[in-house]
């Protein structure tokens, strides 16, 4: 009889303590932080792949390229130009051509 009463009583105190500790912890934590997963996309091998990876991944993961629809070379040239003129990507003119050619050849038509 005694054992049956003391066990629930002990557990109740234990649980209340846990809840209080949890509430205090939440109230004291003012920082929220997360760690983002690393991008894991690899590009298809081919001439211009290195330049594409080097310059494009400065600002965004390479799935920005691989998830696009099928666009032709002039559309990709315009897109690379937009990256330079609008978003300020530091891509030299000859590399810009290499990149557009590479993407059109491997991800466009």
């Amino acid at each position, binding site marked *: 009889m005694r054992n049956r009463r003391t066990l629930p009583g002990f557990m109740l105190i234990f649980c209340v303590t846990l809840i209080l500790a949890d509430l205090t912890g939440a109230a004291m934590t003012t920082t929220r932080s997360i*760690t983002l*997963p690393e*991008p894991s996309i690899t590009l298809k091998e081919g001439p211009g792949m290195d330049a594409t990876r080097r310059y494009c991944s400065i600002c*965004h993961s390479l799935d920005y390229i*691989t998830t696009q*629809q099928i666009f032709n070379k002039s559309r990709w040239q315009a897109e690379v130009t937009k990256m330079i003129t609008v978003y300020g990507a530091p891509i030299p003119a000859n590399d810009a051509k290499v990149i557009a050619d590479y993407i059109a050849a491997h991800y466009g038509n």
Partner: protein
Amino acid sequence: MEHDGISRRNFLKTVGLTTALAASGTIPSVLYAGERKLVRFPGKTELLLLTSSPPQLETPLSYFKELVTPNEALFVRWHLANIPTEVDLASWRLNIHGTVNKPVSFRFDELKKFEKVSYTAVIQCAGNGRSFFNPPVFGGQWLNGAMGNVTWGGVRLKDVLQQAGIRAGASDVIFKGLDKAVLPTTPGFLKSLPLDKALEDDIIIAYEMNGTELPLLNGFPVRLVVPGWYATYWVKSLSDIEVTTQTTQNFWMKTAYRIPDTPCGCVEPGGTPKKTVPINRMTTRSLMISPENGSTLRSGQSTELMGVAFSGGYSVKEVLVSVDGGLSWAPARLGKDLGRYSWIQWFYPWQPTRKGTYTVMVKATNSIGESQPMTALWNPSGYLLNPVEKHTLAVV
């Protein structure tokens, strides 16, 4: 007919490849554009990966069987790769400055002392459904999962602005968040609203999603909520509000997120608009969530078609369903009404007896008569998509 020569790619896209793949446990090593794999980012459940940096994740359609979208399932969309991955409320402040009587700065707990406002509203990316554009357009190739229906809790923007006191001559309000560009040469992300719009009662600075704090990836600690308007204005991790006397010349307002200045917001497919305006209110949409497009049903078996419908701030008045490719239409039953900004669920009992292929369509109309076009309208940036959805169901 449209569904007669569906390419593998389009078939997978429409049917929801990833749902099937998730069920079978196989993810192909080569992903076509439009195909997505499921990933888990911090604070989120498994979502469809569009891009990983900046993160763009979309919600599998099956979550939309629920009236309210869980926080962990809501889509994620950032523009610039330096997103806030750590926020300390001890140092975080919301600053209001510019054409005001007195610049003010609020701590998180101070902000929460304003009167609390709460309502359920659809949040939808301007480019939701862009992958279905024909001819295709550049930009995030979203399927239909860049949307959700969330109960937002926060304080009125108007109340907060009034603390600073708006000076005569003010015309616009600019909103900035904690996200930053990688390069100093990239335009920082900001959005602005005309002052009269910004002072509307229903625009809030939200610190709660469905009763709890915002996940970091959805804009902790606060984000702007502009119900009825596309999510581009719902600036995440909001930290700076500037009242100004002129329209911003920033890229994100002046060049991006603009639609043709025509009544439909559209031009002929492949065309170029003569004039554009900033995107604003959402178009009316309805989606069929269950059964999934491409499903097979048994003849004689009763089933219930269901989905969601919403419009840019005006309640959905009617949802019509056609099970014969648009020849005849009948009203669906509408579910619980959570107000004019929320989506509403629609239900349509159906017991097909004839075997064969059915084209099932759904069309919503809102309280001011706005509806959906039978074929998709087009604009060069891939916004406003809202055609009548056509699903193919097989009855065997």
